[in-house]
């Protein structure tokens, strides 16, 4: 079997959204919005530091679970990220996803998403995230600015190389 390349690289995506930090926060944390930009997924949590959170697929199956590491609405949300699903993914170390929201000017929010990997993960999984995040966050921007979701094809799940 070929050796799997491992990495601790982070993924960072920055987008500027004509909105308010409160609205961007609400969009990231309510299923009413996430189902429209996060590949149809819903979220569950009280979003308090220390609480659990879940990301559910459209069919209701849990896709990601984790714990709220830091919650400072509407400025910063850091959550641990454990993929649920195929057995080989369940053995992966957790990632940390952090959203930072800052006002820029009068009516624009700079949203910075950082996916960090304290423990090495397979490089193809990192690539999967790098394909997915721009789709998700561009959809969020379109939804908040135009009221309409962005219709783009879903990425394929990561495959073993």
């Amino acid at each position: 079997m070929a050796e799997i390349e491992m990495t601790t690289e982070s993924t960072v995506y920055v987008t500027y959204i004509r909105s308010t930090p409160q609205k961007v926060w609400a969009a990231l944390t309510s299923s009413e919005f996430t189902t429209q930009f996060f590949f149809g997924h819903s979220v569950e949590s009280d979003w308090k530091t220390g609480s659990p959170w879940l990301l559910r697929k459209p069919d209701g199956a849990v896709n990601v679970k984790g714990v709220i590491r830091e919650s400072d609405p509407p400025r910063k949300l850091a959550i641990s990220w454990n993929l649920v699903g195929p057995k080989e993914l369940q053995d992966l170390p957790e990632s940390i996803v952090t959203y930072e929201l800052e006002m820029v000017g009068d009516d624009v929010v700079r949203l910075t998403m950082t996916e960090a990997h304290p423990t090495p993960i397979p490089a193809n999984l990192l690539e999967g995230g790098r394909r997915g995040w721009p789709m998700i966050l561009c959809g969020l921007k379109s939804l908040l600015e135009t009221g309409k979701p962005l219709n783009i094809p879903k990425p394929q799940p990561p495959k073993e190389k």
Partner: protein
Amino acid sequence: MSGTKFVYVIFIRTTPEKLWDALTKPEFTRDCWCGCWQDSTWKPGASWKLMIPDGRVGDSGEIIEIDMPRRLVLKWRNEFMPELKAEGYTRCTYEIEPAGSAVKLTVTHEIDLPESKFIDSVSKGWPNILSSLKSLLETGQSIEETRRWPEGW
């Protein structure tokens, strides 16, 4: 490989043709690229300049490859900041692909130099400019901060 590279992907509800116009025509770039416009005939080998609203040349280079509305590769050097100009030429590639009812734009800006200050600088600028371009194409209104040249620069 000891180079520095910045990659930014953005999905925009538009057509490849409209996105191409927005990336190259002054009436769009003035609105979302800090008041700047580009001076070029857009032919392979032609010179290319990014003009600052006050008349200074911000960056210059040439068209390495052009395939409208799919791909544009520029040779690109900063002109107005000596520290960045000293790093020499970078390469910027725009790739445009349809994605459902949207268009995927990938901007790759790179140089054969480790820890490039130029790439660090553009990696802060591109998300702002391209987010504004997306707002402009989807809502008719760019992001206000990107409509004029920042004071003191």
